[in-house]
């Protein structure tokens, strides 16, 4: 029964988060088969075409940190969803879910994003 429930919940989640198409190009450079969740600290937000890019540092287990970039949709679309260039600031904590570059680079195609005040929209309605 609980397995059924899990399956149904997964189905609802899949419906709810089905991402809109990429604005600029396809996702062939990114591993579309798996997503990962990262937590880090924002270092920069580039509010530019064709995609908004958020740069953030993620601490590794050995004490070092890795500079990641994650890209979102176009700034126009995020503006209509309520974003501004100041929505994320250096020092903000960040949690993202996304697909990593296939070549292993620390670049993420962001599917879900949350800042210090909670979830942020990833596209306009």
């Amino acid at each position: 029964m609980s397995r059924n429930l899990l399956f149904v919940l997964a189905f609802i989640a899949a419906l709810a988060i089905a991402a809109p198409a990429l604005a600029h190009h396809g996702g062939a450079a990114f591993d579309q088969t798996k997503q990962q969740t990262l937590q880090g600290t924002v270092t920069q937000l580039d509010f530019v075409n064709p995609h908004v890019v958020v740069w953030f540092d993620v601490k590794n287990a050995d004490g070092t940190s890795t500079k990641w970039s994650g890209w979102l949709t176009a700034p126009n679309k995020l503006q209509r969803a309520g974003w501004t260039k100041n929505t994320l600031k250096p020092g903000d904590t960040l949690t993202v879910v996304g697909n990593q570059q296939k070549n292993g680079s620390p670049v993420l195609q962001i599917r879900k994003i949350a800042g210090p005040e909670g979830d942020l929209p990833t596209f306009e309605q």
Partner: protein
Amino acid sequence: MRTRIISSMLAAAFALAATATLFSQAAPAGQGARGGARGGAAAAAAPSAPAPAKDLTGVWMMRNPPGKNGPWTNFTYTDPMKNPPSLTAWGEAEFKKAKDSNGGNYTLDETNDPVLTKCYPPGVPRVYFHPYPFEVIQTPKQTLLVYEYDHWMRRVHTDGRALPTDPDPLWMGTSVGRWVDDHTFEVQTVGFNEKTWLDRLGHAHTPDLKVTERFRRIDRDHLEVDIKMDDPKALAKPWETTFYYENRPNWELGEISCSGDYLDWTQVEKGGRDYKR
């Protein structure tokens, strides 16, 4: 067991759809339920107030109602698996040369898409695949179709002139339009160069391409656009589709320039380390 799971899934989907519909009815256009048509759990196209007569003015955004079209409307006109276009031998040969990115087959480093690699204008009707709104502005002798993507504007002449019989080649063609009835505006466009793709998968066309668009305003908030491409040298028979749009009274078109960062994006996709601003 399996039936129960499927029943539960259907019930969940129904609940989602019903909720979305409720939200949609409660909120003004442009502030509807989350999860847009592209996600598959969209609000039904709830009817709105009647459409005004001979008036398409406003900002329109593509939103597929449930059961209409699918994710392929982001990059081509008909389901590429079930209903691909009928191509001539020339059309087939040209299509084989295409390395698309928007369909998910090639990276930016590999694609030969003229929009993504050269910032060429998208052409018509490919301009509709850019997932941004367009605005209709009507004046007495012209209707302007303004696309947010790269500031493209098409000037549709409504002064009664005929289509040119031997048009000069343009990226976006030469257009004339007329009202067929109070809610149907027909636009015919000819005179294209051959440098653009018909869609984001790379289907080719020749300078003989003729595009017919019928803008049908179903009610105040909903617009359907029938698109027909005639090009006997590239298409063995006309390629036709219908795209669906919703009015966005609270939106304004923004700026998108296909230059600089746009073309530099290859670096970001490859790893980001060489990306300089």
